[in-house]
């Protein structure tokens, strides 16, 4: 069929099963928006900033497991979206981001709203395309979806000049993707898998190190089975929260800079690290030379470049973690689960020694209490997003996650302003569940214009602002490592968050007691409109325990014990 480039975009998105597109129109992408106006195959959600549109697509992708789609215009529309692309790239989130570009004849002339978009996105996407002829568009869009979702997922950027969206060409979407140069290796080497299982059977203190790749591969339930069958204890990375249920007796906790003492000590004492879809990030390992010093390493990852990048793998297995874990399950009976009881006992003793906890305060609410309380009240029913900072770490530490895709946060890039738009995407993907965004008084202002999107599209995200009048995480580092010189982190001057929400048509609460918080949360859930719940919390609370940057996992700063 002969159709325009703009119509091809609509057709391709429809054939890919896209039901929601996030975006913001502008000059160079107008032809496509004109076709969006005429169609009813998918809904378009108008975010109020291009960065938010990409974050919303990320939230949608993470909650649904599908490819998220965002659409933006050229120039500033594109540059605003770059943070979202980079965020998705760091956290391996499948996205297709379509941008308009100035017409082909104007490219290179410094035209109005022209920027070398593919030049900029090259280093923060899995792949990108500049479409120069409409006849290539069906192939490119099909490849874009395939590349985004396969292998190690990631964002793919497609830049389409305005004249190409007007150009008429043949549209045939039935051709299978033919990419000779891109063939992700999904099946693990059976010999290596067998060797890995043997190493697990022979080890005395093995430890599963579970990463976000498990969630991307939809392998959480297989991993749960493997953990239970083998009796091997497990630690989770920040990105893997929810792979094991919070009350799983095999789950020690989160490891890393703000991981629990027991998790970090287990990693320091283990003789065999079994890394599944994890990439040994510096926030996880601490000082590399001291990381799991006496352990052999099994590393399962779909990305060969992640294996032996930072920590040498004795048993490298390139493959989709779901396939590999399924193969491991078939031969896992070789492992005697009872063998590791004393090892688990040791780990439990670590936990008894320094449990992950906090001290209540009689005057001010503690942020950790708020997170635990939401967990008690909403628990499994809520999907939890966060922004970036102290509240993010407290959420990862204290929320009782029970399922994969329940926790959506910016891990790799650490993007303040991610949480609210991502929570909108989560709500669009999972409308039956409550979408909660834990945020801080710093982060929330970085995409608060999304109140408008939430009101217009009736996406009742509940934003819980843990307000300590500080850029808390930076303040914490300044307190601990910069001799309390709180340079530019005092956020005492603030908007009225209640009125701010109300100005857009949302609702707002300011609470400072437990009773007020419970009432506000209950009311917000019932009212079913976008809400800001501003919780006045203890100003100087630190995220503890903590491995100082560059320190070893076993050398943690710990929560001071309370005198009794």
């Amino acid at each position, binding site marked *: 069929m002969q159709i325009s480039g703009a119509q091809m975009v609509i057709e391709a998105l429809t054939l890919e099963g896209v039901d929601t597109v996030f975006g913001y129109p502008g000059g160079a992408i107008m032809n496509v928006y004109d076709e969006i106006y005429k169609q009813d195959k998918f809904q378009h959600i108008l975010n109020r900033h291009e960065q938010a549109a990409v974050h919303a697509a990320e939230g949608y992708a993470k909650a649904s497991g599908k490819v998220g789609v965002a659409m933006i215009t050229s120039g500033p529309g594109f540059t605003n979206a770059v943070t979202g692309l980079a965020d998705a790239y760091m956290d391996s989130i499948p996205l297709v981001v379509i941008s308009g570009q100035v017409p082909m004849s104007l490219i290179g002339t410094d035209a109005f709203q022209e920027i070398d978009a593919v030049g900029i996105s090259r280093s923060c996407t899995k792949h990108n395309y500049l479409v120069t002829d409409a006849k290539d568009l069906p192939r490119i869009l099909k490849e874009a979806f395939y*590349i985004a979702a396969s292998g190690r997922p990631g964002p793919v950027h497609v830049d389409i000049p305005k004249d190409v969206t007007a150009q008429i060409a043949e549209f045939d979407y039935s051709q299978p993707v033919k990419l000779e140069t891109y063939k992700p290796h999904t099946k693990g080497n059976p010999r290596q898998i067998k060797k890995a299982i043997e190493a697990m059977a022979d080890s005395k203190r093995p430890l599963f190190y579970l990463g976000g790749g498990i969630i991307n591969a939809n392998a959480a339930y297989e991993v749960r089975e493997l953990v239970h069958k083998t009796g091997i204890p497990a630690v989770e990375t920040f990105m893997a929260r929810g792979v094991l249920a919070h009350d799983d007796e095999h789950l020690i906790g989160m490891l890393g800079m703000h991981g629990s003492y027991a998790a970090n000590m287990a990693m320091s004492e283990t003789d065999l690290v079994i890394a599944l879809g994890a990439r040994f990030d510096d926030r996880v390992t601490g000082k590399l030379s001291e990381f799991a010093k006496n352990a052999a390493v099994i590393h399962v990852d779909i990305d060969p470049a992640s294996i032996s990048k930072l920590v040498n793998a004795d048993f490298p297995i390139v493959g989709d973690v779901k396939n590999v874990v399924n193969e491991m399950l078939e031969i896992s009976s070789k492992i005697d689960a009872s063998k590791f009881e004393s090892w688990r006992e040791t780990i439990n003793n670590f936990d008894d020694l320094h449990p992950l906890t906090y001290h209540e305060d009689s005057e001010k609410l503690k942020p950790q209490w708020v997170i635990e309380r939401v967990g008690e009240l909403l628990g499994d029913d809520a999907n939890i997003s966060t922004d970036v900072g102290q509240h993010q770490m407290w959420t990862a530490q204290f929320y009782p996650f029970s399922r994969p895709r329940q926790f959506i946060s910016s891990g790799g890039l650490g993007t303040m302003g991610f949480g609210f738009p991502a929570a909108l995407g989560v709500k669009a993907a999972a409308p039956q569940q409550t979408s909660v965004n834990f945020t801080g008084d710093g982060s929330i202002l970085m995409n608060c214009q999304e109140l408008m999107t939430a009101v217009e599209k009736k996406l009742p995200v509940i934003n819980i602002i843990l307000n300590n009048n500080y850029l808390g995480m930076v303040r914490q580092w300044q307190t601990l490592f910069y001799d309390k010189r709180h340079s530019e982190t005092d956020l005492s001057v603030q908007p009225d968050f209640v009125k701010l929400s109300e100005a857009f048509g949302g609702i707002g609460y300011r609470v400072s007691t437990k009773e007020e918080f419970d009432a506000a949360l209950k009311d917000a859930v019932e009212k079913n409109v976008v809400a800001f719940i501003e919780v006045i919390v203890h100003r100087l609370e630190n995220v503890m325990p903590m491995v100082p940057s560059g320190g070893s996992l076993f050398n943690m700063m710990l929560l001071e014990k309370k005198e009794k």
Partner: protein
Amino acid sequence: MTENSERRVISVIVVNEASVLSRITDLFSGRGYNITSLTVAPIPDSKYSRLTIATSGSVRVIEQITKQLHKLIPVLRVYEHADLVEKEMAMVKFPITENLSDINTLCEAYNGKIVNVGENVIIAMVADEPKRVENFLKVIKRYNPKEIVRSGAVALER
């Protein structure tokens, strides 16, 4: 990392398409790897080009470079050469007043010759292993070379 850094030659087969070269060079600059020299040309009768990259780094860095290169979508194959034949070309412009027979003899010792003679200058070329080319360029300094151009290395596995 304080591991020993050594020179390596990597060949990369890529699809001939727009901006493929910047994907490769961006990867090197973005991840802090070195490019000592780089040559690119299409492979005859195919849709591919071959890049020869001379680089340096520890064993771990070289392994990362090859893995990261392979991750790029238009990259078909990456060869990290162990046993290879490596050649490089250099052209040098000399004033015609220099001792031409000396220059010619030197060129011949390095697989080369005088390839162009003008009114004021001559151009000589040599093609040899990069190390030998370097040596040649040292030796001819006394003949007042006016301009020197090196092609960068090309290599084939034995």
